[in-house]
């Protein structure tokens, strides 16, 4: 797991705010040490939380999809029993601040009844259909068991809700022991591992699609699905695991964050294209995403499957905005989308009469804009030019050349570069040349390192916004407790102020979280 320091602090902050400090201690222990057994957790967590308490906390965190249990296959011939390990799901913790975004997606796509069912799952983590119905019965705005059942079916069909993963999958042994956190320099960690422990655990826990998103489901009749399962051996094992989790043999459901992130990713791509190209291109891209969607295997898909103009056009005219578009116009938009300039890379790749969406390219444009905006604000216009020049060059360039290219005062150039380097926004190398008195300094933008640095700072900023919000609310606590109609004059003004502050702080963190997704989840 490549979590940044402030990513961890922010995640712990979220858990503390929602579940209290004891739960967050267990969480922090797992975030910092990697996967652990419950005994290890009780040993490691600073203020000796006893073993039973640790277990309760783990169940709570599992219920809220923040922790996944697993065990490692014991060595062949080994007597020892596999010990259950717990792995914290960092992403799912951060998703907790996005629940209103997820909820909005469902409300827009499937209506408010589905929205209500999803909200039930978001607040409770995992529920069975029976529990959802029960919950509805106790609520003020009952929508009825039939509607609940129907909404749940729609949510599963749209993949916004999934059957819970296997509670305790067994993963095969690999060189790296779980529980042993990788050490190494930052740079070494950046080099992507082919498969992280997290990916292996999630893969092992996730049932095959037919079981994960069953087409037909009734209370207690999930066994009818076994026939749908193409992947027999693997699937059956997983299905068994899934079912054994539920004593009443009722399927347990939870929100499928993966689908929400995919949805938001697509939406962000359309927005990026709309802003950089135009409305027409955005309509065409949206249609392309729709065509290729079912073939996307993972959220961070780099490129879509190839698609023909015909299939794209067919999809375009299905939408209200695209109904009036002629095929000619769609083709012109595709041309525009596949054009490259110094300003914009190609968003779509043309290949043998078919077209491929280049997700990486679309997202990297938005990432680049985010980075440059920070450089401009923090270090000024000259630095902005230097940074853009170096990103364009993509290799080490000496100070003097940078000053020439960016037309900046040569005396000031080294200082500006050094400032960015100190904050981790540039890479520097000293080059000693024989015969030359002072060593040459070479500079480079390493996008991966800048992204990491920025991501860490963005988590930090989110944490700061949240802390400041709490601080603002606390400082005016008495005021907010007074009955509204009693407030007049100066008091009323103070209340309005605190409201405005609250609004600004929360809307800013909402947008900042979009940027975090851009760098971390998309």
């Amino acid at each position, binding site marked *: 797991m490549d979590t940044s320091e402030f990513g961890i602090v922010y995640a712990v902050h979220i858990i503390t705010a929602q579940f209290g400090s004891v739960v967050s201690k267990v969480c922090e222990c797992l975030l910092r040490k990697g996967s652990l057994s419950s005994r290890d957790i009780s040993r490691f967590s600073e203020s000796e939380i006893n073993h039973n308490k640790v277990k309760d906390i783990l169940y709570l965190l599992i219920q809220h999809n923040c922790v996944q249990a697993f065990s490692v296959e014991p060595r062949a011939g080994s007597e020892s029993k596999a010990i259950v390990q717990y792995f914290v799901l960092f992403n799912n913790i951060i998703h907790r601040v996005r629940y209103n975004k997820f909820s909005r997606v469902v409300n827009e796509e499937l209506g408010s009844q589905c929205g209500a069912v999803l909200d039930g799952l978001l607040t409770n983590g995992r529920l069975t259909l029976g529990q959802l119905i029960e919950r509805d019965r106790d609520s003020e705005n009952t929508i009825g068991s039939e509607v609940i059942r129907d909404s749940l079916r729609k949510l599963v069909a749209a993949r916004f809700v999934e059957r819970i993963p296997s509670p305790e999958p067994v993963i095969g042994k690999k060189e790296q022991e779980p529980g042993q956190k990788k050490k190494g320099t930052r740079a070494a960690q950046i080099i992507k591992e082919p498969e992280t422990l997290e990916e292996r655990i999630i893969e092992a826990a996730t049932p095959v699609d037919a079981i994960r998103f069953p087409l037909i489901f009734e209370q207690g009749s999930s066994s009818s699905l076994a026939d749908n399962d193409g992947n027999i051996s693997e699937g059956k094992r997983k299905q068994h695991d899934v079912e054994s989790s539920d004593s009443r043999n009722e399927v347990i459901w939870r929100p499928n964050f993966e689908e929400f992130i995919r949805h938001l990713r697509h939406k962000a791509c359309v927005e990026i294209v709309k802003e950089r190209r135009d409305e027409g291109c955005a309509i065409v891209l949206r249609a392309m995403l729709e065509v290729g969607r079912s073939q996307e295997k993972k959220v961070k898909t780099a490129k879509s499957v190839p698609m023909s103009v015909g299939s794209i056009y067919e999809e375009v005219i299905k939408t209200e905005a695209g109904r009036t578009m002629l095929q000619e116009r769609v083709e012109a938009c595709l041309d525009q989308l596949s054009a490259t300039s110094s300003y914009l890379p190609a968003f779509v790749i043309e290949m043998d009469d078919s077209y491929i969406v280049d997700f990486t390219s679309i997202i990297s444009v938005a990432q680049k*804009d*985010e980075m440059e*905006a920070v450089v401009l604000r923090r270090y000024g216009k000259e630095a902005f030019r230097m940074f853009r020049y170096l990103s364009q060059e993509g290799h080490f360039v000496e*100070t003097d050349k940078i000053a020439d290219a960016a037309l900046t*005062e040569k005396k000031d150039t080294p200082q500006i570069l050094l400032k960015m380097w100190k904050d981790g926004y540039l890479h520097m190398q000293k080059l000693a040349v024989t015969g030359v008195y002072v060593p040459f300094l070479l500079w480079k933008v390493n996008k991966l390192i800048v992204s990491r640095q920025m991501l860490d700072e963005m988590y930090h900023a989110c944490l700061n916004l949240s802390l400041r919000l709490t601080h603002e609310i606390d400082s005016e606590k008495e005021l907010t407790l007074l009955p509204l109609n009693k407030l007049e004059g100066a008091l009323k003004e103070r209340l309005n102020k605190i409201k405005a502050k609250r609004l*600004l702080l929360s809307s800013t963190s909402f947008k900042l979280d979009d940027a975090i997704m851009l760098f971390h989840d998309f």
Partner: protein
Amino acid sequence: MSKRKRAESKSSIGGLKEDENKLLDLIRSKEGMGATTFEMKLETKIVPALITRSIASLKKNHLIKEVPNINNKGIKHFLAVEFAPCKELTGGDWYNDGTLNIEKIEDLKGICVAILDSAKDRVVTFEILSTYFEKTKDKLTREQVKQILKNLVLDNVIMEVTSNGLGEFSSTRIGQVCYKLTGRKSDNGKARAGAFASVPCGACPHIALCSPDGVISPTTCDYFQKWLDF
């Protein structure tokens, strides 16, 4: 000590002229870049004291001149009088007495933007721009015009596009290098207001020192105070 002195004076009797010639040859061979005393020591193996003396003598006879290095004010370069200092030493066309003429650059950039703006939806070719500047009092070379345009591209105010002969390029030849505004000139060429850059912490120089319970913290920081001051 006395031994060394003797050795020096010995060489100076018959060698001063010789040393000067050696140095002058070296300096001449370096043309517009000239030679530093460090290079002279390294390449001629003449002892430092004699180098200093020879330089003084060459200077007195108007055979060499001293030029500061724009990149490193402390380092002096010695050039033969017949050579003009090269770009590496003076900083190039945009420098006046060792200072970058920012005002002139910004003026020229402003003119480019105005030309591109008046072209409305159409692109402007490099040729049009460079011909324009050839005729003005500045008499810019093609290379200089290119530098100004590149700078505007780095400012993200304009973009460089290659003509495909269609649409907005209809009055240009295919393959011609053209320019147009990125559409952000009104904002002084600022990049899109990024989500992170719009938060005080995104622009904060102290973010690395800021922590929840630290001396610099979000509950006490001035940047937030100002930002939230309605």
